């Protein structure tokens, strides 16, 4: 009577492939990763070579996205910018995920007093305005790539922890966990082998969304004057540098801004697609 049959279980991967939005996101993500990884090869010019006589030239055959205030090629800098965003993003996301997952799963699995204590600690991090905290650390201790990544992780681990915790809370009551415990498996084993493996889809979704978020945070920091420093291009500091030329040389700030937008959109689409694909009740319906 229902359209779907229970015997047929298409793999998550195939369902993901049918999800058009997720695919689109995946393509964007892939492009960004390729651009960042192969930047030295892909970029037509160096990101730092200046030509003072060639400043502020509009997009042309020689410079597809024009040149900036120092005569540097905008296209090359946008490509290299993906590398910086990727580095900071990956580092911050990895840290955030590791801490968030570890803390969240422990809280969700053990419950009780442990859960309360951990959640209170997380509350502390959530009660400080995020940008404020980031500002303090970066402004006072310097805006190196590592510092920026560290402090972004500091601000984003708590929401991840929450999500993982609620997943683990519900998982820890399932039969297979009780069974494993009855069989004498230790806490660590149950956590690692059973809970985390099942929570993995959630974590991956979070990763994708987090990456998008860190790119936004980093560009915000650059707008305030922190973040990656010249001549290293980050999309955020390109927007800032180009802003004074907005009326006369719009391409300098617009293309990096567009890059931020498209990339974050891609990560969000990808994350959404992953989430839809891993949701068992959504299988059988294509969107």
């Amino acid at each position, binding site marked *: 009577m229902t359209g779907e049959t229970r015997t047929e279980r298409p793999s998550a991967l195939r369902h993901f492939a049918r999800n058009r939005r997720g695919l689109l996101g995946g393509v964007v993500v892939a492009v960004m990763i390729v651009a960042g990884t192969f930047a030295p090869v892909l970029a037509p010019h160096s990101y730092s070579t200046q030509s003072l006589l060639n400043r502020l030239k509009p997009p042309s055959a020689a410079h597809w996205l024009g040149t900036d205030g*120092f005569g540097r090629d905008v296209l090359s800098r946008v490509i290299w910018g993906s590398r910086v965003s990727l580095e900071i993003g990956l580092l911050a996301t990895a840290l955030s995920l590791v801490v968030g997952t570890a803390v969240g799963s422990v809280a969700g699995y053990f419950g009780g007093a442990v859960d309360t204590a951990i959640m209170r600690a997380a509350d502390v991090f959530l009660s400080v305005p995020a940008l404020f905290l980031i500002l303090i650390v970066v*402004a006072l201790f310097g805006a190196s790539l590592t510092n920026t990544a560290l402090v972004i992780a500091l601000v984003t681990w708590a929401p991840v922890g929450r999500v993982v915790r609620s997943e683990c809370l519900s998982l820890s009551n399932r039969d297979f966990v009780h069974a494993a415990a009855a069989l004498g498996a230790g806490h660590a084993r149950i956590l690692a082998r059973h809970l985390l493996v099942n929570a993995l889809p959630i974590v991956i979704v979070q990763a994708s969304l987090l990456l998008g978020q860190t790119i936004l945070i980093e560009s915000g920091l650059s707008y305030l004057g922190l973040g990656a420093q010249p001549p290293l291009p980050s999309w955020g500091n390109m927007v800032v540098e180009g802003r004074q030329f907005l009326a*006369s040389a719009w391409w300098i700030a617009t293309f990096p801004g567009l890059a931020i937008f498209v990339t974050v959109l891609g990560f969000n689409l990808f994350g959404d697609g992953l989430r839809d694909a891993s949701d068992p009740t959504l299988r059988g319906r294509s969107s």
Partner: protein
Amino acid sequence: MIHAIALALLAVVLGLTPTLGLAAGKDFVIGLSGDATSLNPVVATDGQSYIAEWPLFDSLVELDQTLNVKPLLAESWEVSRDGLTYTFKLKRGVKWHDGKPFTARDVAFTFYAVLDPKVTTPHRAYFDALAGFPELTAKENPKRPEELAVRPIEVVDDHTVRFRLRYPSGSFLAVLTNPRAGIVPEHLLKGADLNTAEFNRKPVGTGPFKLVEWRRGERLVMEANDQYHAGRPALDRLIMRIIPDSVVLLQELRAGGVDFMENPPLTEVARLKQTPNLKVLVADNTSYTYFGWRQDLAPFTDVRVRRALYHAIDVPSIVREVLQGYAAISTGQFPPSSWAFDPSVKPYAYDPNRAKALLAEAGFKPGPDGVLVKDGKRFSFSVRHDQANQSVKDTAVIIQEYLKRVGVEVQLEPLDWPTFVKKLFASEFEGIVVGWTNHHDPDPFAYTIWHSSQWKGRNFAHYKNARVDEALEAARRTGNTAERKKHYAEFSKLLMEDAPYVFLYFPQQVYVTRAGYEGFVPIPTFAGIYQSLKAVRWTGK
């Protein structure tokens, strides 16, 4: 329900913020890029405070467009033959904003406050020539003025004040001008701690405008002083709006939200000049930007290396392309508008080949990665600068590129201002790109930057040259301008030979104002244009 709450909230909140009424032509809105710190000329030292002080306080004398000294609060003055005594006759009938009369006692009070070691003010150094200066400003057991045999400042009568110097200084009159020498009222500040007095937030001066309101971080509002001794200004009110973002400031100017701003993005100036209802004013300035380094650190100890760095950088291109021509190329400590400037001193021309040759002579050979190497060490150093100053940042990036082309590697380290200044004055740096605000008189900065006794002060680059020391001291000790000029010429020549900096440029001050306002006088000193606010009027054209 939500909507009702929202409206209620909005009403409450809107009601909380006070408002202004504005009359076109009679009110003048100035856009400032930051808030003033304190409105007390004795203690305030940041640029925004200087700008705000100008309409509120008068000094004894003021400058004209050629940097000559004119009477203001002082009607006339006499200098003794030996140049050690200055007697000023003060204008009569001058009143403070609170109505009390201005007298010579206020002048004496102001400058004794500047000399008082308990008052935190770097302006003190400008008055080094006053008699008893070392005793009054000593760190241990400073004397009080009553204990001195020769008093540096004497109140002869209500309208006459006398200054005594310990050596004939040619710069004495020049340092008695705003913004660092505004006169403050004795009757309001006697016995108070000038560093933290409430006065600093509610100033009372003798200037053409009085402060009516100061909403921190938002605006300062000043009203015309009807009792002003030189005649009531034409404008009714001055409103200084604080808008830190220069792009937004420009938008406000175009939209009519402000009538005046300084330092727009230089690439916009051409467009602004063509905008029918806006006017662009340009003034020379005494500040200059330079690329410097620790003189006592290898390899900068070798004069060939220093000259090579100078040859490697194309300063004229920077001035033309980055500053759009709104700067003068610097050849030393003095701007072209200064009488001490010597046009015969020429900078090292842009010549990368010569740079490479000099470096080779100094023992450098190209390394495997293109960076020069000597004795196993790569020629690579860090250059620190203020991360918030856009043109300094741009300049540093350009310098990095030019040096790369001759095989020198520069790592840029932008630092935030508090950290940067701390490291500067602790001499913790290798290379720096920074500027000096400078003074319209040559002595104050030339001495404190280049004299070898000042290593703990502005000479944080640790420069030392005995002949330069002599020239600076000689220039200081005479009141004769022609003689001073000779010594400064010698000084400038020696400096360029030594090439302790790559002197870059003197950026001009560019102002944009709404057309229809006349009367601005762009005086070539820091924020000099604000002196003429008392003469600005609306002609409506």
